[in-house]
C-alpha cells in the first residue's frame, strides 16, 4: 500500500466517523495534513503567524464543508484549494493595510518584519533556509506552484485546479520559477 493509499484510507475512515457524529475523528485528518498545509501557507504568506491563522481557518472551513467533499477524490488538493484561497486573501488584506499605512504600493508586499527571525526558528539548518528563501523570493504564483509540484508531488492539472488557472499557466509559472532559481541554486 502506497503512502497515498494509506492517507486516503485514513481520510475515508475519519469522514465516515464524522458523518456518524464523531467530530473528534477530524483530528486524525488535521494531524495527517497539518505539516504540508502549514508549509504551503508559510510559503505563500512568508509569515509564520499568518500561515498559522490561514491553516487554522482553512481546516475549520474544510470541516464545516465536508459535505461538499467527494470522497472518491484525493483530499489534499481539495483542502489545499481552501488554504490557497485564504492565503491569497491574507496577502491582499496585508497589501491594503500597507497602502492605508502609506507605504509604497508594490506588486506584492515583502515578508513582514520579524518573520525572518521566526523562520530561522522554524528552519534551523542554514542550507535548508537558503533553499527556502530562494523559493520564497519568487512571485506568489511561482512559489506556490513550485512547492506544490516539487515538494508535495501534486500533478500539474491538480495544481491548476487549486490555483484556479489553466494547466498552461501552471507550466508557465513553473518554467519562470525554475529560470529564476537556476541562477541561485545551480
Amino acid at each position, binding site marked *: 500500500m502506497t503512502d497515498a493509499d494509506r492517507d486516503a484510507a485514513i481520510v475515508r475512515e475519519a469522514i465516515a466517523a464524522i458523518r456518524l457524529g464523531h*467530530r473528534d475523528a477530524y483530528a486524525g485528518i488535521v494531524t495527517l495534513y*497539518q505539516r504540508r498545509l502549514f508549509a504551503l501557507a508559510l510559503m505563500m504568506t512568508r509569515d509564520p503567524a499568518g500561515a498559522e491563522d490561514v491553516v487554522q481557518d482553512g481546516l*475549520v472551513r474544510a470541516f464545516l464543508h465536508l459535505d461538499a467533499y467527494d470522497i472518491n477524490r484525493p483530499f489534499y488538493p481539495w483542502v489545499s484549494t481552501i488554504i490557497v484561497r485564504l492565503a491569497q486573501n491574507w496577502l491582499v488584506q496585508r497589501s491594503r493595510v500597507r497602502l492605508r499605512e502609506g507605504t509604497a504600493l508594490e506588486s506584492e508586499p515583502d515578508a513582514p518584519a520579524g518573520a525572518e527571525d521566526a523562520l530561522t526558528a522554524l528552519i534551523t539548518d542554514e542550507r535548508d533556509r537558503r533553499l527556502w528563501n530562494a523559493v520564497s523570493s519568487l512571485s506568489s504564483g511561482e512559489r506556490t506552484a513550485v512547492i506544490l509540484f516539487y515538494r508535495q508531488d501534486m500533478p500539474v492539472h491538480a495544481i491548476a485546479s487549486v490555483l484556479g488557472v489553466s494547466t498552461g499557466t501552471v507550466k508557465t509559472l513553473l518554467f519562470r520559477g525554475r529560470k529564476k532559481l537556476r541562477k541561485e541554486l545551480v
Partner: protein
Amino acid sequence: MNDELAPILSSLPEPAAPASLTATVMARIEREAIAQPLGAAARARQERSRDVWLWITASVGVLLVVGAVASSWYVHGLPDVFSPRTVRGGIGAGFAGWQATIAGIAGLILCLRALFAPLRSR
C-alpha cells in the same frame, strides 16, 4: 527536459506546524459546530438552489401568460377593457385560440405553484 532542479527542490524543507494547531482547530470546530451543525451548509445550498428554481418557474409562467395575451392582441388588436364583451368573456376572451389559452393557463399554474411553494414546504 532535464530538470536539474528537481532533486534540489524536492528537498525543500517543510517546517513543523505549531504544536497546538490540532487542539486549536478542534476547539474551534466544537464552538462552530454547536453554532452551525454539520450539514447546515448543505441545507442552505439546497434552499438557495430551490429558490432559484422557484424564480425560474415563476418567470416561465409569467412569460407564458404574457406571450398568450400578446398573441391575442396581435391577432385581435388591443381589447376594449370597457366593452361588456371583454368583461363577460373573462379569461378566455384574453387569448387567441386554444393553444394560447392552454399556454396562458399553464403559465398561471406555474406562477401559482412558485408563489405557494414556500408555504407547501413548511
